[in-house]
């Protein structure tokens, strides 16, 4: 993002977490409330990034291991004659998906709780900041009108 910009910038999805990173703009006259909001957003972003990057990596890895073990059981190699990677069909993968989901359910429940907390907190702070800004703007208008 350019140096002179006065707003946040959002980027392309991350390779591992598929989340879009945000670069937050820190205004020089940032109030304490605005700082709390920015920090909450940064914290949520970091926490989400950590969770999803790890989760997706684990998914890919376990998927590879599963395919490998199944292929081995069938007596096939990872790559066939043409050099193409051998794959399993959807029905065989279904076992893996079921397994993976049940293994990670608890992790997801915990993450859900955290995410909802972050989300509500950030939105509430945003509301407060917006309210303060609106009041400030109204006060300024009043002053201009009085003058």
């Amino acid at each position, binding site marked *: *993002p350019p140096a002179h*910009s006065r*707003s*946040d*910038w*959002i*980027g*392309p*999805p*991350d*390779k*591992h*977490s*598929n*989340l*879009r990173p*945000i*670069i937050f703009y820190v205004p020089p006259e940032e109030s304490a409330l605005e700082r709390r909001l920015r920090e909450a957003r940064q914290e949520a972003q970091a926490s*989400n990034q950590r969770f*999803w990057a790890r*989760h*997706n*990596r684990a*998914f*890919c*890895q376990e998927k*590879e291991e599963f395919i490998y073990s199944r292929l081995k059981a069938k007596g096939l190699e990872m790559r066939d004659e043409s050099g193409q*990677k051998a*794959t*399993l*069909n*959807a*029905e065989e*993968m*279904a076992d*893996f*998906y*079921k397994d*993976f*989901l*049940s293994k*990670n*359910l608890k992790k*997801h*429940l915990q*993450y*859900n709780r955290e*995410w*909802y907390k972050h*989300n509500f907190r*950030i*939105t509430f702070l*945003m*509301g407060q900041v*917006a309210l303060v800004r609106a009041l400030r703007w109204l006060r300024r208008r009043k002053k201009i009108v009085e003058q």
Partner: protein
Amino acid sequence: MSAIRRCRPPRALAGLFVWCLRNTGVRQIPYQFVHLYHVANDRLITFQYFNFLKRMYVTQCNKDLSQRAKLKSDSIVSSFHELQQLDQEEKVVHKISPVSPVHRSWSETSSRNELREMKSAAETEDSVIPVGAKSKEDRQWKEMKLRLDDLPGILARLSKIKLTALVVSTTSAGFAMAPVPFELTCFLLASLGTGLASCAANSINQFFEVPFDSNMNRTKNRPLVRGQISPLLAVCFAASCGVPGIALLTLGVNPLTGALGAFNIFLYTCCYTPLKRMSIANTWVGAVVGAIPPIMGWTAATGSLDAGALLLGGILYSWQFPHFNALSWGLREDYSRGGYCMMSVTHPGLCRRVALRHCLALIGLSTVAPVLDITTWTFPIISLPINLYISYLGFRFYRDADRSSSRKLFFCSLWHLPMLLLVMFTCKKSVLEKEDKSDLLGRSQERALEIRLP
């Protein structure tokens, strides 16, 4: 293996054709769909188009269509796919086969790609899940500033406007089936109120699901995921749609409809959305969410919750299962990775059993309709073929449990419901008939009284 889609006449009747506008600046909502299936062997291209505007397509009723809707828009095999751009028209060819996606041809618009959703989640070669958009625009860093001329498009996508339109059409079906003379103002108020309530519910749903949506192919281009709108604005929009919507229903129509609308919003946002990640019971809750709009239409017309309303709700409730279960069969990978508890992943046998069970229930419910005096006896007779057909596909899905049977069932459900509702409407028992009958009775009673009195 490519799936061969035969162009069925009834489906061909259901319109076709999508114009997907490129996303540049102000985005317009694509309102039709084009779907091309390509058979590898003989290069046969069968076109299947669904026209969503002409309709009573109730493919979704106030439910999270995103779950059902699409599959990766980016799973395309380059060797088989053509991407043409005629002015503002985009056609995409999908090859349905477990071949790794090679490249993404266009950035996904906010359209409901129910058909694309059925595309298999191809096994990927990379160690990275290819969910991210590969188009140049998406790879750039964007300023998070809200532009006013983008706002209508963004809000339309936030409120899942097409899904809302379908919900409203179910409500109008419920209104139309009610055995009272048609009142235009009431009808319009009910439709508007329901539409606003649906917008609110969908916005809150998107607000809750940002990180999960970014990880699923179908939903990764939503406004909150892309940062086009702040969560605060999304909540404010939801409130500004929901409150007037429910108020309109309560004050302009009747309190019962308003209460149902408010209850439905609550059910969708506070029960269905969190439950999706906790237990498979979410499907049943979601089916109720889908069944309520026609009940709302009925109560808007009559002001009371009759057996007829419940029957209509029951038909929609039963319909949700074959529709959704068939759809979710192809999305198992995304659901598993995203942490969504869906029957198709955790209890595949149950998934298919339930779908079949409810197909059969549809036959039963259609038979009950004339008993309750909603339709004439021609309705179960005329609807029997389509109900039997969907039950047959449900049975095939139950027995075969593979992608082709699930897709067949899903596509059948898309035209089955509008047809069923249409047939129901044409077989509706006329209000005049009933009045005549009661008149006759009254007159004969009067005559009897006259004879008795000297």
